[in-house]
Structure formats: C-alpha cells, structure tokens
C-alpha cells in the first residue's frame, strides 16, 4: 500500500468571467502523504482557496476544470459521481473554511449543526450530542453542554473557528484541509489554535493541508511547504529547506516580508511591491517577472518547476547557472 494520500497532477482550473477565462490554477502538481502536514503559502489571490475547493469539488458554478487529476487514495476525485463525492466529504476529507463568521448556519443552534454532520453515524441523538460536547471541549470551548444550545452569533470569531475545527475533526478524517483558519484571528488566539491543532493531529494522525499567507505559522506547523504565485506552484520542499535555502525570488521576498516569529506578528504586514498579474491576460515568460528584481533575458521564457534536489523543487532560471552566464 502506498503512503501517498492525495496526489494533484497537472491541475488547471479556470473561472469563466465576462472578461474571458480567468486562469486561477495552472498545471499544479504536488502530493500529500499520510499523516503529513503540508502548508500552502502565497499572497491573497494566488488561487489557494480555488485549489482546496477543487479538492472537495465545492467550487463556484463558473469553475471549469481544464486538465489534470486529483487523486485521493488513488481514485480520481474529478471523475467521481456526486454521490461518491458526498461520501468523501466530511468523512475522509474535512475542511475548515477561511471565514469563521460565514461557516455556520445563523438560524440553527450549534448543537443542531454538530448533530447533523454526524448523519453517517448510527449512534442515538443523545450519544451524538455527547460526542459533539466532547469535541467542543477538545478544542477548548468551556461549558460545551450549555453552548450546544446557542446560536453562532453568540460566539466570538475565535470560538467559531474552534467550532469549525471541532466539526472537521469529528469524523477523524484522513485529510484535514484548513483554509487560512487563523487569518481572521488575533495573534494570541492564532498560537492557541495552532498548538491545539498540532496536538489533535498527533492524536488522530491525520494529514493536514494547511493554507496560510503567513509563513511563521507554516514554519511552526508544517513538514512541507508549497509556495504558490498567481495560480502556479513556484517552489516546494521541506520546511527547513524552504526557509533556510529558498530557491525562488518570490519565496525569498515572502520570507523577508514576514515578521518571522508568529508571536510577534504585526497587524500590517510589509508587502512585496507590485501586484499579482491579471489572470485573464497572463504575461509571457516567468509569471513573477514584473515584480522580480533579478529578472534577466532568459525570463521571457517560462521556467519549469525543476527538481533541484530530493524533495526541493523551484521554477526559476536562476537555478540554471549555465543560463545566467549565457
């Protein structure tokens, strides 16, 4: 049996818009192994949310899958029936969405919602509520029995995100996807939630695909990192490799712009000058060229995502010394 859980192969996804096709994902490939924590970083608008909603096929109606495969335990998710897809969602693969304020149904109690997501379980309602209360306690919500009777608006953003994590872990999934689960929260809460997530992960041994635009969090939590820029993977590898020896100018800029340790995170992050290119009319050559201080002639051609050493890939001509000197 292979130890690869999720394989994404040459995935390209467009959004149909009035201006033409917006190429949100281009030729994305990476793997997640069983029990591994993989981080995805990139500025906002780089296609991180598109990528993870593609994995669960919960994309907007104007989404078009152009090419590639997403395999989970070897089966192509993009070829599954809606029925098979539903069996996967919330059981083998769970997700925590980006905005905790939008995650829960505003007119149903938290208890009701935690009950409903256990629809596959044969347990009695009382047992399910017991499980729900236990999960809430596990993510650090005090007095869970009473809180089950409350509505989402009676919880703070941090509490709601904890509830979302509790919901996602309830079925002990093989893969937990978390889309910027701490971006909406303040730094102390962020630390607490990350710590809790780490503990729960080691108990349950699930793989995590963790999205963030905050490198400090990724460094703290992840085994491996995938750096995305404008819908493409520009670098990927071991956390230590990426942080100590980044091989793509974009990754280097991200690290320079990050305040470093997550506890000292500033509210306003220094940003990389320039903007993500228009994904409807993509520029020629290297996608990062407009903003790259090291760009040279060769960069008018698209660099491939090359394997630099075992487990470290980057897409930049600078890694080809024969080209730089030519």
């Amino acid at each position: 049996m292979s130890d690869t859980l999720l394989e994404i192969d040459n995935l390209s996804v467009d959004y149909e818009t009035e201006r033409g096709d917006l190429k949100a994902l281009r030729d994305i490939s990476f793997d997640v192994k069983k029990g591994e924590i993989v981080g995805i970083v990139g500025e906002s608008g780089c296609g991180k949310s598109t990528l993870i909603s593609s994995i669960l096929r919960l994309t907007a109606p104007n989404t078009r899958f152009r090419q590639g495969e997403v395999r989970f335990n070897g089966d192509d998710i993009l070829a599954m029936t809606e029925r098979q897809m539903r069996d996967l969602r919330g059981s083998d693969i769970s997700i925590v969405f980006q905005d905790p304020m939008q995650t829960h149904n505003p007119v149903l109690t938290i208890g009701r919602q935690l009950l409903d997501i256990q629809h596959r379980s044969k347990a009695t309602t009382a047992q399910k509520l017991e499980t729900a209360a236990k999960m809430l306690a596990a993510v650090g919500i005090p007095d869970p029995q009473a809180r089950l009777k409350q509505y989402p608006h009676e919880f703070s953003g941090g509490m709601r995100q904890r509830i979302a994590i509790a919901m996602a872990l309830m079925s002990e999934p093989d893969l937990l996807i978390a889309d910027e689960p701490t971006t909406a929260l303040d730094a102390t809460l962020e630390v607490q939630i990350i710590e809790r997530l780490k503990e729960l992960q080691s108990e349950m041994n699930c793989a995590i695909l963790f999205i963030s635009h905050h490198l400090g969090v990724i460094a703290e939590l992840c085994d491996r990192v995938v750096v995305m820029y404008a819908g493409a993977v520009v670098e990927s590898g071991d956390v230590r490799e990426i942080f100590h020896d980044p091989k793509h100018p974009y990754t280097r800029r991200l690290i320079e712009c990050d305040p470093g340790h997550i506890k000292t995170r500033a509210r306003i992050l220094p940003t990389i000058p320039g903007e993500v290119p228009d994904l409807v009319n993509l520029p020629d050559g290297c996608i990062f060229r407009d903003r790259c201080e090291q760009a040279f002639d060769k960069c008018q051609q698209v660099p491939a995502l090359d394997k630099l050493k075992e487990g470290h890939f980057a897409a930049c001509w600078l890694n080809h010394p024969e080209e730089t000197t030519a």
Partner: protein
Amino acid sequence: MFIYTVKRFALAGLILIVAVTAMFLMIRAVPGDPVSIMLGPRATPELKASLIEQMALDQPIWKQLLIYYGGLLRGDLGIDVFSGRSVVDIVFQQLPYTLEMIALSVVWSAALGIALGAYAAAHPNTIIDRVAAAVSVSFVAAPAFVVALLALLIFAVQLQWFPAIGVGEGFWGRLNHLVLPSFAIGLSWVGYIARLVRASMLEVLGEGHIRTARAFGISERRIIMSYALRIAILPVVTVIGVGMGFLLSSAVFTEIVFARPGIGKLVIDSITTRNYPVVMGTVLVSTGLFVLSTAIADLLNALLDPRARSTK
C-alpha cells in the same frame, strides 16, 4: 424580546390612533350637512334631531372625536343609522367570512409559492425554473377581480364544479364556497411569493454556511429544506404582513363578485347608503387588522431569526 414586543404593539396602537383621527376628520370634511346626507332629503325633523343627538353632531368636532374615542375604549363604535343595531355587532358578524377567505388565500398561495420558489432556486435555469418564472409573472399581473370573474364564469357557471355565490353551511359547505374566492385572491400571491423565495433562496444558497453543510456531505434535500429555506422565507413573512392591506382590498372585489357577506361587502354597502357609523367601524376594524398583521409579521420575523431575537 419582551421589551421589543411591548414596543411593537405600542407602535401599532399609535398608528391606529393616527389612522382613526385622520379618518374621522376626513368623513366630517365631506361637504354638506351630514344628517341630510345620511337620512336623505325626505327625513322628518324628529328623525334628524334624534340622529344629531345620537351622534353628538351638535358638539364641536374635537368633542365629537373625544366621544368617539371614549366609545372606542368601551368597545362601542356607534349605532347603525338605519337598523339601530350596534356597529360592533354588525362588523364582527361579517368579519369571520372575510377572515376565513383571506386566511385560506394566504395559506394556499404561500405554500405553493414557497414550494415553487424553492424548487426553482434548487434547479436554476432548468425548464421547470423557466416555466415557473413565466407562470409567476403572469400570475402576479392578474388582478384579483379579473381572476374572480373568470373563475366564476369557468368553474361555477360553465363547469359547475364549485358554487358561484354565498358562503354555504357547515365546515365542508363553507370550505366549498371558499375555493373560488380564495383562488382569485391568492393567485397573484403565488407568483409574487415564488419570485421572492427564488431570489432569496438563491442568495442563501450562495452563502458560506451552505458550502459548509455540503462539505460535510449533508444531503442536498436536507440543505434546501432545513438549512436554506428557514432563512429564505423570512422576507415572505414580512411581505404577507404588509400585504394584509392589499388582501383586504382584494376581498372587497371578491366579495362583491361572489356575493359573499364580509367586511368588504359591508363597507361598499354602507358607503352607498352613507351609513357613516358603519363605514367608520368597518374601516377602523380593517385598519386594526392591517396594523396588527404587520406587528405580528415583525414579531414572527424576530422569532424565526435568532440574530434578530437577541438584539431585540
């Protein structure tokens, strides 16, 4: 929530007072001597004198208004000029006929409209959605009195499926007589509510929490029925509450077409005979109904929406 309820009813009472005063002054502003208008040119002086006495017409207008309010507080809306019966008795004798007709109209049209709208939103841009849209728009455009006349001609006169006039006896008899009038009143509401529910449902279905429900593999059916619909019908409650005024005016035409007793018929009859105390009483009760139904709609909205409930 308790304070909100009290406040909401206080507001309703205030609106009612303003409405009653305006109506009272408007009727008194009709040119001419109210006594001769009511009793006609051939009334005897004794008759005139007793009416003036009865309605306190010799008093200044502010005093008349106070007298009217005084009666109102005691549940007395005056005396029918012709029969001498109490206006309250007359109005409340007719009211049930109108209420049962409106209630049935609202129930069937809301049920069908919500079902159609929810179905259309769950299957957007399918053939059924488009047919529902076309039908809804034509329903909305159809005024109740036209539908009433057509329904009468087709289903009562031609096909003879349902009785044409009157209210019938016993539960089934009354229900049978209600079918065509409620059909006429409710039809345009079906289209209206269907459009409303479709739009609000589509909006709700695009919200984040619906995506969460889907991400946990909850069935689409359950998502529509218990996750989305509860939010999507909130505007319907308000619309029906505010639409009470509209329903009452449809009732006027419908009661005339189907020769049904009811407050619509009563107000027309009393206007043609210039029976002012009855006109006043009927309008007052209808206004009360309208104000009450908007207040109930607001409270119901707050009850159905926990977010509103806790802030109110």
